[in-house]
């Protein structure tokens, strides 16, 4: 069956992207580089695994739940990463950036309070 091949491809891609995300969490050398890895790669890997599940179950309920989970992880992962990076910046973990446009804004915000 053709759908079986699609499912196998989605499984392989999903597992690969999840492994790459965790590898990035371990191997990258800076907090702001490390936060890149799970927010993009793990989300993509989870989306591929959900596609594999939706293909496998086929029925309307399973596919709908998988779509719901995909929507949810697509909404929450960027928000969580943003909050975490903002907290890290405000806690004096400095990025290795040549141009830091956020620093002036953060200083203004601190002065206002």
């Amino acid at each position: 069956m053709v759908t079986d091949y699609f499912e196998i491809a989605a499984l392989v891609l999903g597992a690969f992207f999840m492994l790459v995300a965790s590898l990035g969490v371990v191997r990258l050398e800076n907090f702001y580089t490390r936060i890149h890895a799970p927010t993009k790669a793990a989300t993509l890997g989870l989306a591929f695994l959900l596609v594999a599940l939706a293909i496998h179950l086929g029925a309307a309920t399973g596919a709908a739940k998988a779509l719901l989970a995909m929507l949810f992880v697509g909404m929450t992962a960027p928000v969580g990463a943003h909050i975490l990076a903002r907290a890290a910046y405000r806690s004096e973990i400095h990025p290795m950036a040549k141009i830091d446009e956020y620093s002036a804004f953060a200083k203004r915000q601190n002065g206002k309070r």
Partner: protein
Amino acid sequence: MTLAELKLAVLYVALVAVALAAMLCMFRIVRGPSPFDRVLAFDCLALDLVGAILLESILLETDVFVDIALVVLLLGFIGTMSLATYLDRLHGD
């Protein structure tokens, strides 16, 4: 090798890969120099757990585990948010 056997083998290999990914996240939780690294690795670990639940759901041919995956996803997000907010209040200002 038939197609069903190939699919089963791919499922087991994917499970091993996701378990390896979870172990790498645990390494970063233990090692992480700052608490933010630990929270980041916790977030990644929750996603790996959801991936393992989905693979197990395909392996057992059932769709009841998708609800559990949704709940674990939600708990991981709430955990990450609350830990990040706590660290922001703790170190910030």
